[in-house]
């Protein structure tokens, strides 16, 4: 069947089977940031946004995406690169395989939670596994990034 959806603000069309999952469709459409880790909803590597919400593309039927809006890391490149610099500075990116899904969920958290504390951050990101970092460097990067975001939005509010 043919589906049409918005991918990173562009209208796209794809031919999919009834049991095709979104992950493969997105990679075929050139969004190679989307990674497959477990295929069983456990690792978070395949995280994309569907209608603005973080979801696991390994477990979404592509057929159900018809008419919806999908965002991958390629669609928020600048913002992702900015946070990526914090991640690199803290040693929070080693093999880097988990990073695209992790960054997508961090940016979703930034949109959803107002000034989250450490426990809220840990809870929000519980579904993003990383084999390399031990998480502490990732958490430091998020806290520094969020602090900067808050400072910037404070400055904007004052202007």
């Amino acid at each position, binding site marked *: *069947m043919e589906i049409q959806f918005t991918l990173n603000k562009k209208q796209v069309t794809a031919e999919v*089977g*009834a*049991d095709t*999952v979104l992950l493969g469709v997105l990679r075929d459409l050139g969004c190679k940031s989307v990674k497959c880790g477990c*295929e*069983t*909803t*456990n690792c*978070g590597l395949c*995280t994309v946004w569907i209608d603005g*919400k*973080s*979801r*696991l593309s390994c*477990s*979404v*039927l592509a*057929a*159900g995406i018809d008419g919806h809006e999908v965002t991958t890391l390629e669609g928020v490149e600048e913002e992702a690169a900015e946070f990526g610099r914090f991640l690199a500075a803290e040693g929070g990116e080693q093999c880097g395989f988990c990073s695209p899904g992790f960054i997508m*969920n961090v940016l*979703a*958290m930034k949109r959803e939670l107002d000034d989250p504390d450490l426990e809220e951050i840990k*809870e*929000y*990101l*519980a*579904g*993003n596994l990383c084999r390399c970092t031990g998480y502490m460097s990732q958490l430091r990067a998020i806290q520094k990034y969020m602090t900067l975001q808050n400072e910037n939005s404070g400055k904007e509010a004052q202007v």
Partner: protein
Amino acid sequence: MITIGNYVKPKSLEEAYELNQARSSRVMGGMMWMRLGNARVKTVIDLSGLGLDQIEDEGNVIKIGAMCTLRQIEQCEALKDLCGDGIAECVRHIVGVQFRNQATIGGSIYGRFGFSDVLTAFLALDTFVELYDGGTIRLSEFVNRKPDKDILLSIIVRKSKRKFRYDSIRQTKTDFPVIACSVVTGMVHGKETWYFSVGARPMKAALLEKQWEIPADASEEMIADYARQAASEFTYGSNMRGSAEYRQHLAEVLIRREMTSILAEGR
């Protein structure tokens, strides 16, 4: 993994129900569990176009559409007003936010999974399920029915002045629970009534009802005795996450903590 012949998004409940009567058809919720099985499904029926994704506060009941996600339930103010933090607590350990943005309450309740936090929590509350063909029945009745070809439309929680607590134990974060317990208390037909629901035993959640008048200043020993009695009335099994004895011990501890917390708050 599952194989699917056709994907259909019906425009009406009648159509969905008719399609589901074929032996090889399956209704899909979030697909999170179903996808992991090996079923060969001829037609998968997506209910997402039927307006079943709203939580409505209808005054004396809260009606949760079957396609509401676990994240919607976690963040719902009406459920928080009624049950405190218990409902958010029962879902917040389930995998991650991305997962809970997709897994549905309909799939969680319909599935009647042994490990289910969601079923354990809602079973202790004054909960009904609305079925397309089977009408509205108590969740405690539904939980013991064999899966059939009906469609679950909504989960209805009757409002009352009951206190609710939920807790679970996991070996690691985001894993299935080793045990899950909820305790509810309130006046029912003029009598102080306690409801205990224990899930992940590892069998599916079961409900126990007791008319116990417990004084507000009950001693720790007294509460421990009640908790021991409640926990001993469930059956437990062993699997790789824990033995039956360990589970019973954990159930007793969680029930005691939950009862203590309710009594400390006042009924």
